[in-house]
């Protein structure tokens, strides 16, 4: 790997002075090897309270049945499936970052993939809890599995998208978990070799005896690449199948052929928004500004505006096809999103998902951390409302006006949803305390080629074109972790 020099025009992926392999390790492992600070404790207590609320609300649901929710005979699916699709969608960005960007050799993924993958796993856990709790009789949750049974082996119906979903979500969860854990092994070994006593024992078990020899690394890289290769179509298939839960039905507003690509784009969109929400806070609290730089933030904002616009095009096609189909019921469903009693939900959906992200066309906004964070929250809200609009607004005014109804959530609905956010953050906060939140081995890999100090060295040695160097220094203006004064003398 004789170090070749990367073009000066590319922005650095690691900023800061005197970054060595040891310093990367120290910085990343700081939260793991030290006592947590107050910010972590406050966050953890709030999140754990949310998780307790979730536990209580779900237990209440199990005890009393689905009647505890606000469902009625017209709106038979509401916040439960909204929450499920929302969480699964959020999970997709993690796989996208870890797998798709690996295949495309995007080096900026190296410092964000670990936390994004962790986010995937926790989001899918939250989604799975919704599936189980909406079943009504969760102790029969094994029924969608093709097991021999007392009915003379009446097998499950493999023509049903709900059965596909069972296979898709469980495969997705287990493959993501394996991908994440294999990537963690070298970093767990780092913690192991720096720790003593009981901590060393625990991490020793978790590290599977990793040594970092030549052959291990070679196999590790092969495995990572192939896992990325199979995870990429997997992630697309998962949300395609989730969309088919709706698209193969006969309900206007659901039976839309554009659903699979539209849902996949929406999933990536909402997932990146959640990654942005988490990482902007994490980098600040854990002091990782040198590894998760403005380039990462800006790149993610670019993906948000791209996928948000794809979702916008999908919305427009839906409207066009509803009009073009000439089917009255179909047309009504889409008009109803603006003129019906849920007009405000429609406004949240279209406003937060299509209109607001367009602000990211401006570089000033893309590189502003506070605005990026607020917009990421806006997208999260918008994507929740998208699922709400698709699910509830297609049901609440059905074919028979006498059965038209509204959906009013009960305290249990609200507690399950708010609580699931608590579960998610509890898991995430525990993760950043016990495991490295940045893939150290992969960040070490780009230190010699893509760091600010390597580029500074090139400039000092006069190996770069002057105009290009000027462009590069200018691009660093937006970085909160770079001191411009250092560049004046060069």
């Amino acid at each position, binding site marked *: 790997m004789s170090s070749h020099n990367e073009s000066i025009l590319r922005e650095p992926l690691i900023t800061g002075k005197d970054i060595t392999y040891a310093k990367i390790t120290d910085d990343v492992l700081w939260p793991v090897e030290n006592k947590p600070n107050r910010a972590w404790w406050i966050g953890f207590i709030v999140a754990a309270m949310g998780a307790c609320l979730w536990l209580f609300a779900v237990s209440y649901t199990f005890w009393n049945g689905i009647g505890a929710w606000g469902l009625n005979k017209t709106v038979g699916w509401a916040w439960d499936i909204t929450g499920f699709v929302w969480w699964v969608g959020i999970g997709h960005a993690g796989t996208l970052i870890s797998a798709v960007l690996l295949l495309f050799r995007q080096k900026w993924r190296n410092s964000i993939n670990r936390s994004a993958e962790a986010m995937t796993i926790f989001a899918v856990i939250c989604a799975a809890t919704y599936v189980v709790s909406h079943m009504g009789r969760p102790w029969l949750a094994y029924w969608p599995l093709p097991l021999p049974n007392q009915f003379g082996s009446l097998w499950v119906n493999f023509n049903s998208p709900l059965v596909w979903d069972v296979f898709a979500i469980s495969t997705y969860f287990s493959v993501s978990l394996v991908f994440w854990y294999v990537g963690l092994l*070298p970093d767990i070994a780092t913690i192991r070799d720096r720790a003593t006593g009981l901590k060393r024992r625990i991490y020793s078990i978790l590290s599977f005896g990793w*040594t970092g020899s030549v052959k291990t690394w070679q196999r590790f890289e092969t495995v990572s690449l192939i*896992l990325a290769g199979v995870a990429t*179509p997997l992630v697309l298939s998962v949300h395609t199948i989730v969309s088919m839960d709706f698209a193969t039905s006969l309900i206007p507003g659901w039976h839309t052929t554009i659903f699979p690509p539209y849902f996949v784009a929406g999933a990536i969109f909402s997932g990146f928004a959640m990654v942005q929400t988490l990482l902007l806070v994490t980098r600040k609290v854990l002091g990782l500004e040198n590894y998760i730089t403005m380039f990462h933030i800006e790149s993610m904002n670019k993906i948000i505006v791209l996928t948000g616009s794809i979702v916008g095009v999908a919305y427009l096609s839906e409207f066009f096809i509803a009009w073009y189909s000439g089917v009255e019921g179909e047309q009504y469903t889409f008009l109803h999103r603006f003129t019906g009693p849920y007009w405000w939900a429609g406004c949240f959906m279209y406003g937060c998902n299509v209109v607001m992200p367009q602000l990211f066309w401006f570089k000033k906004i893309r590189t502003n951390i506070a605005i990026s964070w607020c917009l990421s929250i806006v997208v999260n809200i918008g994507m929740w409302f998208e699922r709400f609009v698709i699910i509830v607004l297609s049901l609440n005014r059905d074919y028979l006006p006498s059965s038209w109804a509204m959906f009013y959530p009960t305290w249990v609905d609200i507690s399950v949803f708010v609580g699931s956010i608590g579960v998610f953050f509890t898991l995430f906060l525990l993760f950043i305390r016990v495991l490295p939140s940045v893939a150290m081995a992969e960040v070490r890999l780009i230190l010699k080629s893509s760091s600010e100090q390597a580029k500074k060295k090139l400039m000092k040695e006069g190996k770069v074109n002057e105009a290009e160097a000027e462009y590069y220094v200018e691009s660093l203006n937006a970085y909160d972790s770079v001191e411009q004064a250092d560049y004046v003398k060069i």
Partner: protein
Amino acid sequence: MSDIKYILGLFEDPDDMMNGIDKLQDNDISVYDVYTPMPIHGIEDKLGVKRSRLDIVAFICGITGTCTGFGMIYFMLVMDWPMNVGGKPNFAIPDFIPITFELTVLFCAFGMVAAFFYRTHLFPGRAPRVMELRATTDRFVIAIDANKGFDNQKIDNLLKEAGAIEIKHNDRKYVSYE
């Protein structure tokens, strides 16, 4: 014969370490293994490590998954208990594709990772066989078997010349054993 079992050259920079391997090999000194905190590209060729065959394993496992998935659905819906659902055909291939695909991915991922763990002897609770504790943090370590009759002094000099910042003469193989 001294008690020294392994000579370790600790490098701070991966390029210096690669240089060190070249120097040793030019002097016909064989390298036992190299431990690094990150993957080093191109080192396999230098040390003559053969390419990994895990991709073949992945393919075979994937195909097994495909056959399992398709075969299972075919058996259950077409052979064992064909159901009349609105007069539609029982053998509806397009409907079989999603689960067949999911099982392909599942078998491929789990089979390959299991093979990786098996071949590399990785499993929970395995005692780590580490020669130098900093090799997982910030040191790039070349290990040379000291009992192969090489001139230890010469090895030291070559490693130093290449830029090793520390040279260790270990009298036991794995420092991680307590």
